[in-house]
């Protein structure tokens, strides 16, 4: 592993420096290059990263053991040595390909999307900034997946968090409808702070790792992990639990998923790239990368798998009750991340990574198509007669849509492909990857299987609901009737993603398992469960049943303007819960934020102000100081020091007064003094003269 015998392995640092160059060019020249130039530079930068990733994959074909490329020293303190080192193996290159590949397509899409977005929001100079942030995200994400130690991974981990914050708050001075508001910047803060909770877990795990292993390098840690597990199994358990906290934060699992739906405040390419396809999969990558640690603790696997499965179902139920196009996809993303986390938690690393990859394709496709739909609605709204412009219009609300298959046919078909892939119908990509996770669960963790099957049913249902509401029926708003198709610069990347969503599943075709074999070079040979027609059949039937049910509710009788959701009646309170996200945000508000605010207010008002300022500073310190100075002033200074000096001065003046009397001005008395003195001295001399 130490030498870089591969042809292209030594090129791997370019995967960071190409986007970095693009970012720097756009920072300094962005305003001069013009929109086309900025988009071209940023897309070329991302494309170069993709090219480098492809070259790595080619080299790996000849040298599947991979390589470790050391670029520079980073931290050397005592026995701690952390270098800036790139790790090229089948796992990291898979992630590089997904990140840079999907990233490049989304860069191209964003050229068209942001061109219109900055005009709808009346801030054209903000255009280059978007691509600077987008390139920065690519840099950070590739740092995350290419690092050779947990510390390098953490640098990327924090970098993508920052990129996510900057991009969610891209329109920081308005809300999602373009009105002046703090809503978007609050969403950005929510994402950042929630992620900070997860980062705490990651850091704790990294500290434990350094404490017990003396290093954070992947190879060094994995070499010692069996030894530590034999002597101190609690170390492994706690390390995995802390890693899970990090995963829960970054990959939006229960209970820290709440930031992801709000993250939809960012422009749609951001939602697609960061909050669906790549960044949120960092947690899945982390668990897969740490497989030697996780596979040693059955308890940890059980916890991770259960958290993933419960998240998968829980988020799916919320998605059923949402009306915002992107919110449905956001909860769907949380749910699908639950599938992945459950997969890698069960030890089905190949299945989890496979689902990560196919999900990146079809969820990016869905988000970008949703962006196309929203812009189409904006265009339609823009063409309306002027009087209607001042109403508050939400272009992302599905209740405003309907019948869009006629006005936006290309987007419609792309959306259908993405939806079928997400529903998990054969032969689309999602079918194969989801089926592998379900298959593994049915063999090892039956409760996970049941929960995930229910989630899969709901997935097909809410996607069906969305399709009927958005594309079928009649337009429920004039904007939907006048919606326009998006330009080719936006739809072309979607076609690539759609093609990948169709054929992506064949990368790991049952029985061949090319992808499993590819990852086996890194993860070691895994047990590959036999393809089960029972599992695949059940999940396909469930998906078809869900589609039928959604047709019965939303397709047969399309929603009318102002009509309440047809699910509300039969489900009653249950639907109210789904509609309101099970009041989780309110629960956080009540259980965490309010107590926290109360505590903060208590600390600020009572402890800091009343106790510390009023009492301690004013009473204890200030009054104590005054008392002490008064003590110094009155008894010490006035009583002792002054009195001594007064006494001295009195003494001097008394002495001078009495001596002054001698100087009485009578010459004769002086003469007498001289006489007396002479007599005295002479008398003394005479009497003592021996």
């Amino acid at each position, binding site marked *: 592993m130490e030498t870089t015998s591969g042809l292209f392995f030594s090129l791997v640092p370019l995967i960071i420096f190409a986007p970095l160059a693009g970012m720097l060019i756009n920072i300094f020249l962005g305003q001069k290059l013009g929109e086309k130039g900025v988009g071209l530079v940023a897309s070329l930068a991302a494309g170069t990263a993709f090219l480098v990733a492809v070259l790595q994959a080619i080299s790996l074909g000849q040298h599947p053991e991979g390589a470790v490329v050391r670029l520079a020293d980073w931290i050397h303190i005592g026995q701690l040595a952390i270098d800036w080192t790139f790790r090229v193996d089948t796992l990291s290159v898979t992630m590089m390909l997904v990140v840079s590949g999907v990233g490049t397509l989304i860069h191209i899409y964003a050229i068209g999307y942001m061109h219109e977005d900055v005009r709808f929001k009346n801030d054209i100079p903000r255009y280059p900034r978007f691509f600077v942030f987008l390139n920065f995200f690519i840099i950070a994400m590739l740092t995350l997946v290419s690092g050779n130690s947990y510390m390098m991974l953490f640098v990327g981990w924090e970098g993508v968090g920052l990129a996510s914050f900057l991009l969610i708050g891209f329109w920081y001075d308005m809300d999602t409808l373009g009105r002046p508001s703090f809503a978007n910047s609050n969403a950005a803060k929510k994402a950042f702070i929630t992620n900070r909770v997860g980062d705490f877990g990651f850091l704790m795990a990294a500290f434990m790792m350094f404490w017990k292993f003396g290093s954070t390098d992947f190879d060094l840690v994995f070499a010692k992990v069996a030894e530590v597990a034999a002597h101190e199994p609690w170390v492994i358990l706690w390390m995995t639990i802390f890693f899970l906290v990090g995963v829960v934060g970054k990959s939006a699992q229960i209970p820290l998923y709440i930031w992801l739906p709000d993250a939809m405040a960012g422009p749609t390419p951001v939602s697609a790239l960061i909050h669906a396809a790549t960044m949120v999969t960092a947690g899945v990558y982390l668990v897969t990368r740490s497989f030697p640690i996780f596979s040693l603790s059955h308890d940890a696997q059980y916890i991770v798998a259960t958290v993933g499965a419960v998240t998968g179902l829980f988020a799916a139920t919320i998605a059923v009750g949402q009306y915002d196009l992107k919110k449905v996809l956001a909860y769907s993303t949380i749910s699908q991340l639950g599938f992945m986390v459950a997969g890698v938690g069960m030890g089905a690393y190949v299945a989890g990574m496979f689902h990560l990859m196919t999900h990146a394709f079809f969820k990016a496709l869905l988000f970008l198509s949703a962006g196309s739909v929203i812009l189409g609605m904006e265009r339609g709204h823009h063409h309306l007669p002027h009087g209607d412009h001042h109403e508050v219009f939400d272009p992302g609300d599905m209740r405003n849509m309907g019948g869009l298959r006629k006005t936006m046919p290309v987007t419609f078909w792309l959306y259908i492909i993405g939806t079928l892939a997400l529903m998990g119908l054969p032969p689309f990509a999602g079918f194969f990857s989801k089926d592998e996770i379900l298959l593994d669960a049915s063999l090892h963790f039956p409760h996970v299987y049941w929960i995930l099957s229910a989630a899969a049913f709901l997935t097909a249902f809410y996607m069906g609901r969305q399709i009927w509401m958005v594309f079928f029926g009649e337009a429920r708003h004039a904007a939907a009737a006048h919606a326009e198709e998006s330009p080719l610069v936006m739809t072309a990347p979607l076609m690539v993603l759609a093609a990948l969503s169709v054929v992506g599943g064949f990368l790991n075709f049952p029985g061949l398992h090319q992808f499993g074999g590819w990852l086996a070079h890194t993860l070691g040979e895994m047990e590959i469960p036999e393809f089960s027609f029972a599992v695949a059949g059940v999940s396909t039937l469930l998906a078809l049943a869900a589609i039928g049910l959604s047709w019965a509710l939303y397709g047969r009788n399309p929603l009318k303007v102002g009509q309440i959701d047809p699910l509300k009646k039969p489900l009653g309170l249950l639907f109210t819960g789904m509609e309101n996200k099970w009041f989780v945000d309110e629960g956080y508000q009540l259980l965490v934020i309010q107590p926290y605010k109360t505590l903060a207010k208590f600390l600020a008002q009572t402890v800091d102000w009343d106790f510390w300022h009023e009492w301690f500073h004013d009473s204890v310190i200030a009054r104590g100081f005054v008392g002490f100075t008064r003590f110094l002033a009155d008894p010490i200074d006035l009583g002792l020091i002054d009195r001594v000096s007064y006494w001295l001065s009195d003494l001097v003046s008394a002495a001078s007064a009495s*001596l*002054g*009397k*001698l*100087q*009485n*001005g*009578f*010459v*004769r008395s002086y*003469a*007498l003094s001289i*006489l007396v003195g002479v007599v005295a001295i002479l008398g003394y001399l005479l009497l003592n003269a021996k």
Partner: protein
Amino acid sequence: MIPVTYYLALSAILFTSGALGVLIRRNALVVFMSVELMLNAANLSLVAFSRLHQSFNGQIFVFFIMAVAAAEVAVGLALIVTIFRSKQNIDLDQINSLKG
């Protein structure tokens, strides 16, 4: 030959009356004269001892003293004249400008 004791006794009497004159009298001229008296009383005892010891040292010393006294008289009288001019009298008790 007159014993030296007589001279010394006369010298002592002269010196004492000179000293008393300095201390008691207020007229600057009288005080001045008394100072002269004291000087000459000392001169007398010097001359007497010179005679006794058959040495000229005392006599030479007396010459010096007489020369110095002459100079002193010149300066002293000049001072007294000046004081008289400014204060219109020469009462020593009135001359107290340097009183502390």
